[in-house]
């Protein structure tokens, strides 16, 4: 059974006269690592929001891990998200007043499943951060607002990966990294997914990384509504 299955999905932002998402059928198998690429503004981030349940599609079904998100209440979606989805936002969305460690361990507060699967979130957070080249007490204990953009991006990635969520959504997570950091980052994300058996949906414009994924999809062929 597909871990992600979308049928006849339509979504339009409030006030927009065209729907941003118009998907007949799209699915991803468990454990698959998928790269999604297309032009800017084509609705990739919107798709990830729909999968994460932070927006509500107007029509169609969207089931993740066998649960139809369109049938959940907003509180149920919040809980579902915190248990099942690790998301790296395009804009990171870190809490600026917390340090790197606190930001990474934050999802464990809200997800009982992640709490159960992790003995010590802080040790796990250190492991993830140091695998991406972020070591040193000082770096980990200062507010993330004082980190560089690339460092913030890696904190966001570690926060998505912590607690082995079944689905990782990554929205252009390598845009701020140099090639060396980018490769270390990819190594970690791919290894973690393999380790935990997580499914990965990775959005990127970077042409050099397609070979590292199981499948590379041109978003244009999936989304039928072209708003751009």
């Amino acid at each position, binding site marked *: 059974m597909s871990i992600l299955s979308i049928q006849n999905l339509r979504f339009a932002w409030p006030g927009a006269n065209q729907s941003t998402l118009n998907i007949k059928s799209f699915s991803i198998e468990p454990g698959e690592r998928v790269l999604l690429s297309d032009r800017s503004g084509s609705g990739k981030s919107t798709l990830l*929001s729909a999968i*994460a349940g*932070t*927006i509500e599609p107007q029509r169609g079904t969207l089931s993740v891990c066998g649960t139809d998100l369109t049938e959940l209440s*907003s*509180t149920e979606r*919040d*809980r579902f*998200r*915190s*248990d099942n989805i690790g*998301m790296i*936002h395009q*804009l990171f*969305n*870190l*809490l*600026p*007043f*917390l340090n790197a460690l*606190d930001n990474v361990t*934050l*999802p464990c*507060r*809200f*997800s009982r499943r992640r709490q159960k699967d992790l003995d010590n979130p802080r040790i796990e957070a250190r492991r993830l951060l140091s695998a991406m080249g972020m070591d040193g007490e000082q770096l980990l204990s200062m*507010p993330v607002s004082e980190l560089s953009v690339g460092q913030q991006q890696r904190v966001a990635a570690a*926060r998505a990966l912590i607690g082995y969520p079944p689905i990782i959504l990554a929205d252009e997570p390598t845009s701020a990294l140099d090639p060396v950091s980018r490769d270390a980052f990819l190594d970690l994300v791919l290894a973690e997914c393999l380790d935990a058996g997580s499914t990965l949906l990775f959005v990127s414009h970077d042409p050099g990384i397609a070979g590292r994924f199981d499948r590379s999809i041109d978003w244009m062929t999936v989304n039928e509504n072209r708003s751009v």
Partner: protein
Amino acid sequence: MIGLALKSLQSRLFTAVLTVLAVAMSVALLIGVERIREAARNGFSDTVSGIDLIVAARGDDLQILLATVFGIGSTANSVSWETYEEIRDLPNVAWAVPLALGDTHAGFPVVGTTPEYFDHYRYGKGRPLALKDGQMLIDDTDAVIGFEVASSLGYQVGMTIVNAHGGGEIETEVHSETPFTISAVLERTGSPVDRMVFVSLEGFAAIHSEDNESTLDPLSNTGLDMTTTDVDGATTNSMDQGHDDHEHARGSINAIYVGLTAPEAALAVQRYVGEFQAEPLTAAMPTATLFRLWSITSIAEASLRAVSAAVVLAGLFGLVVMFTATLDARRREFAILRSIGATPTYVAGLVLVEAMMVALAGILIGLLSLAVILPILTPVFTQKYGLTLVFSSLSSWEIGIIGFILIAALVASVIPASRVFRQTLSDGLSIRL
């Protein structure tokens, strides 16, 4: 949740501290005012604590109390010496001190009495009067003066003063023939005694025995009563009601302080005095009479409370402003929390917890600063007004106020917190330019 709320507050330290201070100030003011009010009441009660009854010519209890204890106004009539002796010899009466009233010296009330006055008068927590300097009243021409009289007029033991006759600010008649020598200055008590001049009954009477001979024309006098010449006749006339018919003959008094053998006897003695045959009398119970005074001053106290309540409202308003103003800036913070799994209830709870922390910190700092400031102020208040400010336990009214502040802070933060529920997640997740 508390840790998170703390860190979030910390990132807005400046506004948070200002808000805490606003709440702290209002709490300190409110309770400080309450303490001073309480201390004032206690000070009054302490002043009359040694006296069980005050007997005077039939009149209003409150007027008798004010005239005798506080030296404000005068009693209706005089009481004969025989009446005094009869009351003094009643079985339930432990002691009785006669008082002759109605004169002032430089605006301070002059009281004619006997040395027993100093034995029985109590102030503060049952403390007797003490001498700062000199010896107690011996001779007819001796005067014992209160601390404030001495300090404000620059009087010392051994100096000779001249007394004026008649109550009121302005001295209408100067009895230059009857000088008094200051025999003693009393320690500061913080009670009305500080503002009194004590002379013997004979000395008091002597002031007036001359009245018959001297012509009472203020304008013909020189010296001290030059002030009177600035005042028109109407003022001078109004003074007359203060000393009716100059009936301060030797042996004639205006009031009697009575100490009882047992407090239970008060009602019986009061009734006996009320039905006194020889002349119409009233026996006022000082503590009970004070309650009547409170009912008058409670209007002023209520307005004082209203002002401090307004300050509390201003402090709470600051709290609402802070939470509402920062809410827009915090949409993103809330959206991020929600995107990683926090429920709207959790986020709203976060806002409420924050409000509680700010309010609690404000209350604590307010109380702490009171605990620091009151002991510093106490000596000043004791010296100046004889008030003892105590910062012990909180009264139920004060606990009520604190509870009200907490609840008000909670209500104030409900408005911003409820906005969390109306925001959609995507509202906060993308940066609005």
